[in-house]
């Protein structure tokens, strides 16, 4: 997995590169927007970690360039500006994820892992939570080695919950994951799918938070 890191602050760049290398990733560092564009064009990386505040070029321009010339590259944007506006703008411009400075090493590595999985890397195609294993490549799930029979939406729902184990998933975010834009969603459809899933899973595997959503606790 090759990562291009575009960050002008040497101390941050050094720390991020070290953290990534320690997780077995190959990191190529550039300190400016033009160098980043050149590198994107010459040898597109799997993941671009892009600081929006580069000195020689607007970060959004680099983002656009990346989407145009290296569409397969996943982009994780770093920024020191917290306004929701620039966050939305970044995601609109094609950023795959977003991290506000300062961030913890664990947070950074978790985000990179999610992007890795999205790229279909073999090493991270399965997700394990307790006795449950999800094989994202074959879209299969198994419980203690026994295959589970899941309807398509049940699988998607379980994957969404398991992918973010330990994090509450709101009703709204699950609905957007499961249904396309403009698709009619029955008000209780998530509840119905959860009900079916629960019958196939160990007791207490999916936790309900009244009025908020659901969560698969980390095990």
């Amino acid at each position, binding site marked *: 997995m090759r990562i291009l890191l575009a960050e002008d602050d040497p*101390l941050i760049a050094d*720390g991020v590169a070290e953290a990534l290398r320690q997780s077995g990733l190959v990191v190529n560092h550039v300190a400016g927007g033009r160098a980043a564009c050149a590198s994107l064009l010459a040898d597109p990386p799997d993941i671009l970690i892009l600081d929006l505040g580069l000195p020689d070029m607007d970060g959004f321009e680099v983002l656009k360039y990346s989407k145009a010339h290296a569409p397969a590259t996943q982009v994780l944007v770093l920024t020191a500006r917290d306004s929701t506006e620039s966050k939305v703008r970044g995601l609109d411009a094609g950023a795959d994820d977003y991290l506000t400075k300062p961030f913890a090493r664990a947070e950074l590595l978790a985000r990179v892992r999610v992007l890795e999985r999205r790229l279909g890397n073999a090493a991270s195609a399965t997700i394990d939570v307790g006795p449950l294993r999800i094989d994202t490549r074959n879209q299969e799930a198994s419980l203690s080695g026994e295959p589970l029979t899941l309807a398509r939406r049940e699988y998607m729902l379980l994957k969404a919950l398991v992918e973010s184990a*330990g994090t509450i998933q709101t*009703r709204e975010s699950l609905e957007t994951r499961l249904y396309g834009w403009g698709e009619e969603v029955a008000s209780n459809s998530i509840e119905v799918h959860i009900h079916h899933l629960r019958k196939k899973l160990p007791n207490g595997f999916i936790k309900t938070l*009244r009025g908020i959503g659901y969560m698969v606790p980390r095990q």
Partner: protein
Amino acid sequence: MKSIRVFLTLTLLSVTALLNFAAALRGYQQGMVEAEVLFNQRMQQHLDLLNFSLPSQLKTQELPTGGESIPTRVLASGNQLEFQWIRPNGELIARSERMPASPVAPLESGYRFINFAGYRWHALVERSQDGQSWYVLAERDDQRWRMAESIILPAVYPMLLAVPVLGAIMWWLLGVGLKPVAKLAADLEQREASDLRPLVADNIPSELRQLTASANALLRRLEASFARERRFSADAAHELRTPLAALRIQCDNLAFNESKASSQVQGGIAKLQDGLERLGHLVDQILILNRVAPDQYMGRFEPIALTAAVRQLIAEQSDALESRELDIELVGDEAHVQGDTFAIESMVRNLLGNAIKYTPEGGSIRIRTTDTPQGVVLDVIDNGVGIAQELRDRVFDRFYRVDGDRNDTGASGCGLGLSIVKQVVDLHGAHIELRDSEFGTGLCVRVVFATSESKGGHGNE
């Protein structure tokens, strides 16, 4: 002066009414003088008529002496003219019915006032053409006045009656004339606090051009200073967070690399990480506080799905909720408010953060959003330590922390959370109240967004 329109209408109307009244009075007086002349002329004419006919009748002895039967109606038209025909020795030759039998006036030629029969009279005394007798013609003064007034007043009344009509017309015309001012005022009034676009300068009357130009210059200066302020905030955020981010990642790497070091080293690193975390939090809170200050606010209000936003913000706190084994629930209605997304999210994040921080492990948090006719009510209720009644006013002060830097819950913070909450509440013209928790212990923070009131966001700190 409350209103130019009222002022102008009232003053113009008063002046007009006064002038009108003066003109009417003058017209009336002038008319009365004219009438006097006219009536006197009429008397003279009647006298000439008498003078023409009577002496010859006397010569031909057609008149009986004592002349009681001389017709008087000839001389009467509307108001009566009375007359006496008198010999120079004072003996009456003839008189009209209502005249007494003796001369009513001294026998000297000319006009004069006389009094008899309980009235005041205008009298004309003149010698006949043959010099053998005198005529006295008399007209009642009150009748003369009444007659004169009946002619003059109809000409004067319209002037007075015109005043209210004139007032209405003035009011309307001034309204039309002042419309550009009203439009300018409405233009400024309807503006959001953040709207600093210049006022439209074309098609306005010359009187307002200078005002508009000045206002526009002011708006330009304001916008420039706001832009400077915004840039400074953004730059400050960037400049503060970049070194913090460097320290954080380096410190985390150090912790990873030294995972086999002595517990003393590891403890030191952990404290360093904790300190950096708090510093990061402080920087965030100061920047948020600066951004949601009502007098700095430059955003735009939009409809916000409050309950959905709360749900999302709770999800963001999953780690803290899980690690402290807190029981959290969101109840009530799906409520919506008008507001600034960043500000509202910052407020909820702080309220939620406080509830998590000050609720002991295994405690309960309940968040309720209620859509009432009076507005949307947000309750954040916990069963934590609560805040003593007498301290509830102080907790909104900046950097104030109950029981100093660390209270018995062991929770740490920078003391800006509730200041941020208060500013957001003010920004939205909402209302905040600290109440007793329905759990028995703990605190309920209630924020009420009043319906359709103070959308402009001019709260006061």
